C-alpha cells in the first residue's frame, strides 16, 4: 500500500512537471511581451508572423494612417461639439469606418496571402461591432 501511494505521488509529480513544461514552452512569448509592453504592433507582428521587412512597411502604413485617423477624429469631435445633426455625425463615422477598412486591406496586402486573409477575417468584423471605448493609439492595456 505504501509503495502504491509513493508511486501515485511520483506519477502526479511527473504529470505536474510535464504540464508546467508544456504550459511554459507552449505559450507564445512574443504575444505576452506585446501585452506586457502594451504594444499592439508587437501583437500584430507576433500574431501574423511578420518578417522584419513586412513589419517595417506595416508600421509605416500605420503611422501614416494615424494622421488620417486624427483628421477623422477632429471632424467627429467638431461635429459633436457644434451639435451637428445625427446624420452628419453618422456620415463622418461611416467615413472613418471606410477609411479603416481601406487601411486594413492595405495592411493585409503587405502580409503573406494566408496571413493577410486571416488578418482581414479578424479585424473587419470587429470594425463594425467595436465597443468604441479604447485608446486612440497603437498602445494597448492601461
Amino acid at each position: 500500500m505504501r509503495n502504491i501511494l509513493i508511486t501515485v505521488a511520483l506519477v502526479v509529480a511527473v504529470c505536474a512537471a510535464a504540464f508546467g513544461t508544456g504550459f511554459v514552452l507552449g505559450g507564445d512569448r512574443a504575444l505576452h511581451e506585446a501585452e506586457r509592453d502594451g504594444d499592439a504592433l508587437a501583437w500584430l507582428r507576433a500574431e501574423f508572423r511578420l518578417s522584419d521587412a513586412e513589419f517595417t512597411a506595416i508600421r509605416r502604413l500605420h503611422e501614416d494612417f494615424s494622421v488620417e485617423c486624427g483628421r477623422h477624429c477632429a471632424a467627429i469631435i467638431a461635429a459633436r461639439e457644434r451639435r451637428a445633426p445625427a446624420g452628419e455625425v453618422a456620415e463622418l463615422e461611416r467615413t472613418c469606418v471606410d477609411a479603416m477598412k481601406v487601411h486594413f486591406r492595405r495592411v493585409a496586402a503587405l502580409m503573406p496571402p494566408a496571413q493577410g486573409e486571416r488578418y482581414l477575417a479578424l479585424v473587419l468584423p470587429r470594425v463594425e461591432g467595436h465597443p468604441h471605448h479604447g485608446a486612440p493609439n497603437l498602445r494597448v492595456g492601461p
Partner: protein
Amino acid sequence: MPVSSDSLSPRLREWRVNAPRDPQFRARVRERIAARSAVATWPEFARRHAVALGLVVVVAVAGGAAGGRGWAKSRDAALSARLAEEYIGGLDARLVARR
C-alpha cells in the same frame, strides 16, 4: 521385473526411508516465509512492476505536456483576441471623439 500385487504390500510395509535429516530445514522455511511477507522497498516494487510503471510514467508525461500546451494555447487565444480589440480600438477615430 514385474511385481505381483500379492508381494507389493509386504514390501511396502518393510520399506523404510533413510533420508538424512536437514537440521536447517525449519529455519530456512521460516526465513522464506519472512522474506515473502516483508514489505518490499519502493525500488524493489518499481523493479518488479517496471513495465507497468514505465507505461504509466509515459502516459503521465504525454498527458501532462499536452494539457499544459493546450492550456497555454487557449490562454494565448484569449489574449490575442483582447489585443486584437485593442489594436482596432487604437485605429478607430470614433473612439477619440468619444473620449
